[in-house]
């Protein structure tokens, strides 16, 4: 019992050992060394800042996503356009044929003309 009491007393004494602590002082010439270090840490140039921004993961991911979306839009518009042309081709088939007939653009006619000339 007494041993336990001693232990508790000693632990309390250890915990209270910082009660009258005084403030530790920074080493001499602290400002001189700090000043030198501050001027050593050169500010990055504008080019370095730009490179820093360009190589940021967020910027890289955003740029890549932008180009992927742009490609998607371009591909979909090309597909739509080609589909539209095909549809218009099938729709106007009769008109083109009648146009060809009207102006007599068939190749066989040209051949027959050449043969006749020969």
């Amino acid at each position, binding site marked *: 019992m007494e041993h336990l009491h001693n232990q508790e007393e000693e*632990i309390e004494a*250890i*915990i209270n*050992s*910082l009660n009258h*602590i005084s403030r530790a002082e920074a080493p001499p010439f602290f400002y001189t060394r*700090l000043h030198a270090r501050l001027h050593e840490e050169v500010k990055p140039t504008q080019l370095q800042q730009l490179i820093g921004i360009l190589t940021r993961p967020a910027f890289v991911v955003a740029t890549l996503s932008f180009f992927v979306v742009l490609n998607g839009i371009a591909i979909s518009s090309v597909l739509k356009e080609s589909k539209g042309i095909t549809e218009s081709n099938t729709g106007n088939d009769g008109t083109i044929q009648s146009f060809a007939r009207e102006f007599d653009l068939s190749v066989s006619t040209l051949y027959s003309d050449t043969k006749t000339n020969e």
Partner: protein
Amino acid sequence: MNEQLLIQQLQQGVEQAFAQVVDAYQHLVYNTVLGLLQSKEEAEDVSQEVFIQMYQSIGQFKGESKLSTWLYRIAVTKSLDWQRRKNRKKRFAFIEGLFGADDRIRHDPPEFNHPGVAMESKEKAAFLFKAIKSLPDNQKVAFTLNKIEGLSYQEVAEVMQVTEASVEAFLHRAKQNLRKELGDYYHKHK
């Protein structure tokens, strides 16, 4: 000089104002960092980082708190970051050691003696500092600011940006944990 004026001059980049701030607050910052890191060399390095950080981000200081409170916050954040980096390096070195990549023997630093502790309490304080190392960050910070820097509960609450009740709880738990840690030590060594 008026603190407001000093801050204005700092924001304008007046070097003399910076020198004045360092002169006024260097011991406050050094003592806080020393209490948290328990190494004189590391404390000087980190204290320098604190003032460099202050110099670089003084433009963001809105004056909502006192300059000293802001400096305490930077000092605490920098010290905890430093400690985390150090622990990561230690773990990495341990793994390297397992694979034989690093054969250097790493020693734990010798027991820490705070220069502000009276001669008759040095031995007891060294045990206490060893036990403080085992505390969780928020308890360690609250205990250091209250016991080593002598801040009131309200001041600690302002630095930690928590309520006074939280500070009381941190300190209560810190003391409980320290009693347990020191009890274990007592059993091993007596």
